[in-house]
């Protein structure tokens, strides 16, 4: 391991890590809303909405993220009506295409996590809340959601780490994230091992942070 080499390239990699963090956080943020939304559809009474949610999650979990990001970035740009619509402002940029793909992907996984969390909530608690005269909305936000969050924390923590790793695919649509820059350095300097160690350590550091944040949250939300 050549330390000078690592130090020479570290600033560039750290700068790229900023983009990785940005992509991860934004996708997770939007993904939570998408996930909760589709989880609610799944637990509701409408058969149509149930199937919409079911197939959404099925398709996005059953195909590789790489295919999804390619369809959104290269595929949609091929359609003239998309390019002429207002959507193009958004789909024109690789940055927003990546966020869209990541959001839909993590949304699908999160919807499953949240769904099973909602389903495990004890019926008695809901009945008790309703018995106490809480409105449906209040029951949802004050009772169901907090319990569901607590329930889904461990699984959601895993999903966060998977998403962090997933953002490496941004490099396939021209974005220079941590993996993209690492690849560039490898192909110009031909030092795969060193670059892997440095870039890999940065990723592991981020994984470590996510891991501990989740642990902290688990403690905080632990009512039992």
């Amino acid at each position, binding site marked *: 391991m050549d330390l000078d080499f690592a130090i020479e390239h570290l600033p560039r990699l750290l700068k790229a890590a900023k983009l990785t963090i940005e992509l991860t956080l934004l996708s997770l943020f939007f993904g939570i809303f998408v996930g909760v939304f589709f989880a609610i559809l799944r637990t509701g009474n409408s058969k149509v909405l149930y199937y919409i949610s079911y197939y959404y999650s*099925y*398709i996005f979990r*059953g*195909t*590789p*993220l*790489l*295919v*999804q990001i*390619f*369809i959104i970035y*290269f*595929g*949609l740009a*091929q*359609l003239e009506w998309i390019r002429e619509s207002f959507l193009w402002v958004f789909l024109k940029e690789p940055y927003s295409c990546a966020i869209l793909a990541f959001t839909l992907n993590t949304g699908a996984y999160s919807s499953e996590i949240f769904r099973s969390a909602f389903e495990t909530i004890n019926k008695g608690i809901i009945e008790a809340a309703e018995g106490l005269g809480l409105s449906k909305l209040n029951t949802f936000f004050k009772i169901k959601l907090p319990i569901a969050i607590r329930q889904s924390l461990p699984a959601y923590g895993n999903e966060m*780490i998977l998403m*962090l*790793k*997933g*953002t*490496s*695919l941004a*490099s*396939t649509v021209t974005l220079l994230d941590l*993996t993209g820059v*690492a*690849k560039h350095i*490898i*192909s110009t300097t*031909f030092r*795969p*091992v060193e670059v*892997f160690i440095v*870039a*890999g350590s940065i*990723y*592991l550091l981020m*994984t*470590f942070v996510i891991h501990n944040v989740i642990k902290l949250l688990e403690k905080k939300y632990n009512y039992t």
Partner: protein
Amino acid sequence: MGLLAYGDTGWGDELFFATLMTIAVALAAMFIGFFLAAIFASFKLSKNKILNLIGGFYTTVFRGVPELLVIYLFFFGGSGAVMYVARIFGYDGYIEVNAFLTGAFSIGIISGAYSTEVFRGAVQSIDKGQFEASEVLGFKKKIYYYKIIIPQMLRLALPNISNVWQITLKDTSLISVTGLVEIMRQSYIAAGSTRDPLFFYSFAAVLYLLLTFLSLKMFNRLEKNYSKGY
């Protein structure tokens, strides 16, 4: 649909063989993963602190670093490493580690990290009493492992193995960056040549859905078979 014609005029045959390639790489990676998982799960379960550490290091690194980065390491570094070892043995020439092996190894090492956790979890969930019971019955350690622990472990681990398989199957799409002609690479080539990326990437998505669907069916059947008699 002319685009999917079988033969020289369309991409049907190419995509068919690419699908077979995807399955082959995924299977090879899964087996390499099992092999590694058997080693590292026993490390993680061992009483030896150093072995624990090695096992932990393996699963942490390969579950925490993006697949693409691991693939680049093996793709750009793989041949170099093999040639380095070969040189120690006195062979000084180019050894081509083909794209299939590079792909299967890089995906296999990642898959193995997930399988390690699955195996470890399965062993740990086996009732402690059974260890004691078999000791009382005077089973040899080896017999005891092969006849009692491993069959049970497989049954317990099956749903999770199914998950690892799905991850592995989807991860193979990333090998396309190394030039191995699997579904994704073939779609990429076809999309470039016909300038119709939407069609070919959507078709690739359908192929992957088909594969994940079929393998889920198969695992469900296996699970049913294995749970007979318990």
